[in-house]
């Protein structure tokens, strides 16, 4: 009720208000390709966003591939240095190192993928 009264009070205009309104009034501006330019920009941005993630993933993967292979090889070599009898005692309960590492990488990739899908 109060807001209606306020709105009505706002709509009551004196001659000066009407004069100002007529002076501020301007002709509508023709589109003249303005909206087409905006839509072109919007589509470009949309495509850029859609492509950015896969491109970043592929680039990151390509950059990280060689060091990752080196790291895995180094860890595998390190594993081979551990005395066999020490390892054999745990083989019954713990899976091989490579399997654990692969599992960890898959888990991390899965979690990352889930988060990206959520976003």
């Amino acid at each position, binding site marked *: 009720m109060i807001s209606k009264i306020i709105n009505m009070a706002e709509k009551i205009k004196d001659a000066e208000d009407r004069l100002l309104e007529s002076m*501020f009034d301007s002709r509508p*501006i023709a589109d003249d390709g303005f909206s087409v330019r905006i839509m072109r920009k919007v589509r470009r941005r949309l495509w850029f966003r859609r492509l950015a993630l896969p491109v970043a993933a592929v680039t990151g993967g390509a950059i990280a591939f060689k060091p990752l292979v080196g790291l895995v090889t180094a860890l595998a070599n390190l594993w081979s240095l551990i005395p066999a009898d020490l390892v054999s005692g745990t083989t019954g309960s713990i899976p091989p190192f490579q399997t654990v590492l692969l599992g960890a990488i898959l888990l991390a990739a899965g979690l990352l993928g889930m988060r990206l899908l959520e976003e």
Partner: protein
Amino acid sequence: MSASADNELVARVVSAQNTAAFGELVRRHQSHVRNFLRKLAGDYALADDLAQDCFMHAWDKLQTFSGRGSFIGWLLKVAYTTFLQSKRKSKRYAEILDTAGRVADQESRSPVQPDDEVTDLDKYLAVLSEEERAIMIMSYACGLSHREIGDATDMPVGTVKSVIFRGKEKIRNSFDIKDHQHG
């Protein structure tokens, strides 16, 4: 231009990134936004650049439109913010040029309205501060309510009313607007 149609278009854009619906919103409101920025900036080319930026910001932030006020009110808020940001940036740019000992040739850069096209309205707007100008344009040219202007400028309704009152007083004191012959 109904508010419910605007809200429907906004919902389509937000839910499915529907570019056609956004295009329709641009077509419906480009004239209002460009008119607002042209009056505010006083430079048609700059105003149209700012209007493009405004619609791109609107595309990015459309999900923040709650649908409580009018869409054009929200859009003019984005336009006003875009204008203020651009002004701040150009000021910083001028300061950098100044520090480097170079003079920015602003007159030759921006095609402002020619002198013979200066209207009565331009003269009236010239006596107002930037904030008063923005609020007066929103009120008298865009037909926004005081509440909508308050939302657009982040000001209480009472402040909006007093700014309009002050603006009218300035125009009244500088010009005899009763003698103005319109048309």
